């Protein structure tokens, strides 16, 4: 009973705090929160904690549901055509709306079928090896491959597999690219010696700081926080970076007041390191990274164009 009272009091005070900048928009009912990630993982926990924090701060009610598979395309398919009054939102990655949407040709998904709300965190994407493997730099990888060793490269999405292929091609080597389910699986495969190198989207950071793993390459267009000396993928001859963001999305054509209110609320929780969700984001994903509104629209358009090109290049 006391805990209930406490929650209510906290909720009431938080509501008073946040209502001021939310322009007064309220969802017409409980919000279905679709999650494109498997239950129990870091991304799933992030979504559920954001919902929990928002329930406490706004009094809105969330109904989380995992709609997994096909890199978020299953979620987008299910979401397309659902009510755009703010009662349905989902969490995917920017890649879902760019590369994966385009790769799912038969699904007929357009960017206009969706309203992007906000990103929450960016990926610290790097090519990772374990310290044990003896591969201390990307040059070591090239040398080993040229000496005739099969280099197995773990990737968790088709886009990352494409980028890995281009990375090999640009350096005159060929990787055996192994598809693994999720970042955790790549880490497990690296640790077990099942693959030699693999993509890490930030999950590797702890091991890198502990000295168990090494970021050989930064997959971003900027240096990685944990390994500022790792060469950028662009410097290794690949024009496409492998970065991306977790993002919230809603069905297309949502009214601006609803879109802004949802984006504001979600991003303020994500960016606040003292909230449960913000705490997780700063611990697991190296801090929040917020892009919303026109900037987010523009990012998705440019990501889609670059994905299109990436697909053509890797099909050659």
């Amino acid at each position, binding site marked *: 009973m006391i805990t209930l009272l406490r929650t209510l009091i906290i909720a009431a005070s938080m509501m008073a705090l946040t209502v001021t900048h939310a322009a007064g928009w309220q969802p017409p009912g409980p919000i279905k929160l679709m999650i494109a990630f498997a*239950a129990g993982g870091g991304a799933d926990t992030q979504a*559920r904690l954001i919902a929990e924090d928002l329930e406490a701060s706004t009094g809105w009610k969330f109904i*989380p*549901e995992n709609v997994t598979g096909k890199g978020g395309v299953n979620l987008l*398919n299910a979401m397309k055509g659902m009510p755009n009054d703010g009662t349905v939102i989902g969490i995917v990655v920017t890649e879902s709306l760019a590369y994966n949407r385009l790769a799912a040709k038969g699904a007929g998904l357009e960017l206009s079928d969706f309203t992007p709300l906000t990103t929450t965190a960016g990926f610290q994407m790097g090519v990772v090896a374990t310290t044990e493997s003896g591969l201390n730099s990307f040059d070591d990888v090239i040398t080993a491959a040229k000496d005739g060793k*099969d280099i197995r490269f773990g990737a968790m999405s088709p886009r990352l597999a494409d980028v890995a292929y281009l990375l090999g091609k640009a350096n005159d080597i060929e990787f*055996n690219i*192994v*598809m693994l389910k999720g970042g955790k699986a790549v880490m497990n495969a690296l640790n077990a010696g099942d693959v030699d190198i693999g993509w890490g989207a930030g999950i590797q950071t702890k091991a890198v700081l502990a000295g*168990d793993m090494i970021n050989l390459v930064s997959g971003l267009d900027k240096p990685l926080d944990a390994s500022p000396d790792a060469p950028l993928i662009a410097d290794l001859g690949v024009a496409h970076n492998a970065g991306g963001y977790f993002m919230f999305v809603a069905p297309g054509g949502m009214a601006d007041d609803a879109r802004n209110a949802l984006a504001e609320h979600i991003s303020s929780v994500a960016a606040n390191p003292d909230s449960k969700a913000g705490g997780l984001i700063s611990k697991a994903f190296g801090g929040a990274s917020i892009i919303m509104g026109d900037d987010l629209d523009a990012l998705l358009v440019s990501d889609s164009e670059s994905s299109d090109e990436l697909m053509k290049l890797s099909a050659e």
Partner: protein
Amino acid sequence: MQAWIDHLLLGVQAVFQVSEGFSLLGIELPITLLMVFGGFLVGIVVGSTPGLAGPMAMAISLPLLISIFGYHESALLPVFGFLIGIMKGATVGGAVPAILFNTPGTPDAYMTTLDGYPMAQRGQADRALRVAHLSSASGDTFSDIVLIVSAPFLAILVERYLDFPEKTALLILSMTFIAAVIGKSAGKGLVSVGLGLLAAFIGTGEDFMPRLTFGTEALAQGFSVASAVLGVLIVGEVFKSLQDLRTDGVKSTKTLTAKKKPADNRLSRSLIKRLAPYIARSALIGTAIGALPGVGSTLAATLGYTTAKAYSKKNANKKNTAAYTEFGQGAPEGIAATEAANSSVSGANLIPVLSLGIPGNAAAVFLILAADSIGGFNPGPSVFRFSEGSINPELVIAFGLFTIMMLANVLNWIIGGRVMRAMGVMVRIPKHYLLPIILLLTLTAIYIQETRLVAVWITIGFGFLGYFMRRIEMSPLPFVIAFILGGRLEETARQAFSSTGGDPWFLLSSNTSSVLMAAAFIIILVSVRWRR
């Protein structure tokens, strides 16, 4: 070593953790402990009721538990606690109707009727139940200890020596083995596995377009594990039982007229001493059989009973003991041998689950299903890996799981016998009331978990599949296990293919995988010839 102990302590602690806001009579209690207790009681009730079985109760309670505890890692131990409680309770409970009413509550208790019922007819029902409890609890505890000791080592071995091609071959071998040993015919077992794989491949795969869906929206997400498994295992069984009721008519259950009880039914020390070798031998047999995926407790019980019978004959000739009762005439040794064997299967059955992620029986299927739906715990070699100085939460959960099993054993020793002896009433519940309730509960549970009506239709569809499989005596268990492993099989096969640089003969690329594949073929050949 220190790191292992740290994990162990954390695991034990997690089980005894008191969750805020849960109290009884003003005392805050650890929720996991309560769940083990509750599950154990439910298990005994279910096991004592003919027509109900442990896996059924596990299947129905799983969605309900998940809706109560949610999808957070903290839900894992309470849910596992309840499920393991049911598993253990049902194992002991199965002997009750076998002894009292000559109707085995579960197939593996059939051998118990052979000596248990004659004992009951002689007015020694209470003593028979005590023997059953003693043997069952001993077998169970022994098997759990073997699990706890061997699973981590096996997992680490697998991890170190098996690469993608070998893992693929191992999965194929497990499925082949299950197909060959469960049920009456290896051919039907293989068909069952094939159907399971077919169902698993619908709507899944690496491509962005869902396959095998005929363009329908309902199939695009694939079949959920809960619908397929509960449909084939539970709904199918209900349909079959309903038909049996219709053809055989509603039978009134005969009750044994109460005989005068002898004054003392407690087990004397000399009797326990006499039973000990039977219990020990059967516990070993049961554990060894349990460690192989798919070989069920029924075979363990049969083997335990027949070896005990042979041994006792030999012994009787040698010693010419006067106290010797012929097996099948009400020998406590017969009960002990059967119950110790079938109970020691359950712990060992989790060895392949925890070390490889491969379920060996229906109960293990539901534990994997629980881990899958809640998330945060992926049974398999990665559970037992950690780097010095860091804590692997999955290993903590694994030790929590072991703690739960030992707790359930303690419960079993303390109260199991008493509860079990009070369960004689359960057999009077008529099946024609029980079956509709099970059906309703199952469908409700599915709807709660899936929250879409199409899942209910899919479940009923799988129910018909399970019904027809039973009609033609095809075991549904290979189907279920293949369905669960299908995704993994495809994934590892693809990984093996790409990691070997696109070698189509990856299954024969190393000695280990070639041996595993050869073993799979030999198992099928042998079982086809042997059955003929």
